[in-house]
């Protein structure tokens, strides 16, 4: 069904205020009771229409007997003004006619009232929601499915179908039963949940009341009885074997259903295009099989869902009742007393407190322990034997040589050389610096290497030319003195 099919509901509404009758908080309950009373009256009389006078008399009598009932007695006149009337049946009936719940027709000189189609459907559904008085039994629906499958099997075992109408009838009947059963199971689940919610909302219950609710109200609750029957007498598992056997037969010979479907459609007057009937039959068969399979696949989970809810409710109440009955309140006061003492004394100052609560255990370690095994400490020797060690003079000389080299060409030495070259000048070009030996040549080469540091007392500007010094071809640059970082100069020298 697509959304266009649903929109038909609003086309059918005679008045946009149709649902308003049941939506005003203060009067909705009274209105609903009166609607139910009207519905009951129609059903009891077994009539489709009754005279307005008869209905008014009946409702007035009903209102007199239920004087506390609050219901709508105001009506909007033609000018859009709301006029309130005394609490009687006539204005309420007028309101129902205005809003489309009731239909008024003239037969000769008498005004006859009938219920609208929506009235019948909606009040019937709402009554079903409220009605817990009768025990639901799933047996009939499950057995219906079972018998229908049993009836279908001979059609598949004999080569020629005996009566195609009957075969299709069995299929339709199974689908209807599954729909009904599925809806009822959902309702049972919801009703049990609603009962538990209602019970949990009552905060002022004594032990006796809770016990009575658990042992009387809940045990006699129609949906609970239906549920216990569902897991016992009506359990769909009992019929699953035969139903699966039938389904396998239906799947193995799809032609029988398709032929029967086409034949039935040809017999029945319909607007359907007969060229498409074969594909429709195939689709219908697929739908049927998936519906049955899905239902019997899901029914276990629905029963389990109800079962879990039921178990939790009983468990929770049992534990709480048992606990409440053991006069445990003394323990609470003892604990509170202990806490108040702990509040006033200094726990850390009393080493005895560490023995206050001890948890017996057999293993102090587990996978989450942060314990690290202690490594065995080495035992100190009784006496130490010192042996004089001599270093090879050649190695010592090599080490000293390297150390002096490091000192000779470190940053301090390079900066010192650069500043010495600058002297009092602000700038100097590299090719103008006098070089006396190879060490100084290396220092000159290293000047740009240390120039990038911010703390350097000089900076370098590269020039696009080269010069020759001591037989080496070098890139020329200019050294510029920076006087800002005196601190650093101090630090360096």
């Amino acid at each position, binding site marked *: 069904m697509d959304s266009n099919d649903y929109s038909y509901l609003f086309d059918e509404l005679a008045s946009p205020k149709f649902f308003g009758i049941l939506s005003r908080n203060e009067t909705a309950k009274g209105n609903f009771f009166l609607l139910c009373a009207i519905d009951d009256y129609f059903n009891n009389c077994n009539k489709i229409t009754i005279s307005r006078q008869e209905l008014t008399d009946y409702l007035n009598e009903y209102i007199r007997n239920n004087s506390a009932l609050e219901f709508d007695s105001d009506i909007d006149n033609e000018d859009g003004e709301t006029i309130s009337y005394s609490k009687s049946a006539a204005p309420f009936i007028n309101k129902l006619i205005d809003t489309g719940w009731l239909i008024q027709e003239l037969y000769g000189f008498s005004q006859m009232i009938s219920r609208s189609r929506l009235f019948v459907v909606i009040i019937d559904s709402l009554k079903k929601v409220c009605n817990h008085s009768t025990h639901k039994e799933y047996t009939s629906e499950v057995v219906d499915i079972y018998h229908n499958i049993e009836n279908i099997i001979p059609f598949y075992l004999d080569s020629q179908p005996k009566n195609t109408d009957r075969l299709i009838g069995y299929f339709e009947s199974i689908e209807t039963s599954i729909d009904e059963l599925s809806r009822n199971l959902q309702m049972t689940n919801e009703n049990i949940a609603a009962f538990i919610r209602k019970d949990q909302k009552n905060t002022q219950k004594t032990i006796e009341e809770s016990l009575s609710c658990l042992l009387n109200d809940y045990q006699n609750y129609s949906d609970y009885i239906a549920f216990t029957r569902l897991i016992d007498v009506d359990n769909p598992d009992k019929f699953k074997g035969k139903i699966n056997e039938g389904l396998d037969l239906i799947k193995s010979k799809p032609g029988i259903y398709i032929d029967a479907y086409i034949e039935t459609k040809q017999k029945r007057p319909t607007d359907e295009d007969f060229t498409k009937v074969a594909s429709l039959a195939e689709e219908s068969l697929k739908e049927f099989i998936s519906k049955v399979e899905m239902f019997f696949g899901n029914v276990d989970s629905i029963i389990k869902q109800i079962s879990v809810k039921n178990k939790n409710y009983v468990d929770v109440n049992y534990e709480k009742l048992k606990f409440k009955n053991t006069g*445990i309140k003394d323990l609470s006061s*003892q*604990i509170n007393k202990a806490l108040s003492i702990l509040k006033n004394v200094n726990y850390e100052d009393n080493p005895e407190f560490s*023995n206050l609560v001890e948890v017996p255990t*057999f293993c102090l370690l587990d996978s989450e322990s942060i314990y690290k095994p202690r490594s065995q400490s080495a035992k100190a020797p009784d006496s130490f034997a010192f042996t004089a060690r001599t270093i090879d003079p050649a190695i010592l000389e090599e080490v000293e040589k390297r150390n002096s080299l490091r000192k000779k060409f470190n940053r301090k030495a390079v900066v010192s050389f650069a500043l010495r070259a600058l002297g009092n000048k602000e700038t100097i070009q590299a090719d103008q610096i006098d070089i006396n030996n190879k060490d100084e040549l290396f220092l000159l080469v290293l000047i740009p290497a240390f120039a990038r540091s911010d703390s350097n007392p000089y900076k370098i500007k590269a020039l696009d030319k080269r010069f020759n010094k001591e037989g080496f071809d070098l890139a020329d640059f200019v050294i510029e003195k920076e006087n800002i970082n005196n601190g650093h100069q101090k630090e360096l020298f």
Partner: protein
Amino acid sequence: MDIKKNCSELNESVQSSSDTELNEIKETILKLLSDTYLVKDKISDSYFYNIAITNQKIIRDYFSMMDIDLILKEGLIYIKADNGGLRYRLSKLETVLLFILKLIDIDSMIDLTGSEPHLTTVQSIKNKLEASGVYPVGKPQKTEFIQALIRLKRMKFIDFKGSNSYSIDDDQIVNIYPTINEIINGDSTEIILASLSNYKKKDESDDEESGLEDNEDEKTSED
């Protein structure tokens, strides 16, 4: 305790059990020795709990040879050594938290209309701890509080998801296990109260003594 008798009974039980059963029993005994407690509702324990329930005779005989009792309570199985055994001493915060958890558990049981019993949240524990006034405002710090909860979780008093202060938020649901009843019950609380009141008296008497000394000092100074 008749060790020989227990040993022969154990031998009979072992002979009549299959290899698979014996392996399961061995695993369960090791689990009991490492964890002490097996909680039915704890997912990682339920397998061992069920094995311990079905094979309680053989496990009991095994432990009885070492003077260790196998104790069965509702939803809990644990071992207890009569002659001492190891003890884990709870810190002040852990002790206070255990008291508070027990109070919450009692409240959840007394309230016939509330949510499921034995369930609470980290926030509820915090609120109750603050309300107790044992610690000054702002104490204990979050990490210390969560670490204490984690230690109680390791001892199977409680259970919750997460294992550090980053993964545990205030809405975290905490399940209180029946293990708590074995440590905090009517008898144990009486003993705790008796020790606590002794300490309090000791504190007061210390104060009194020190007070007297002060007075004497004052007297000497006056002289």
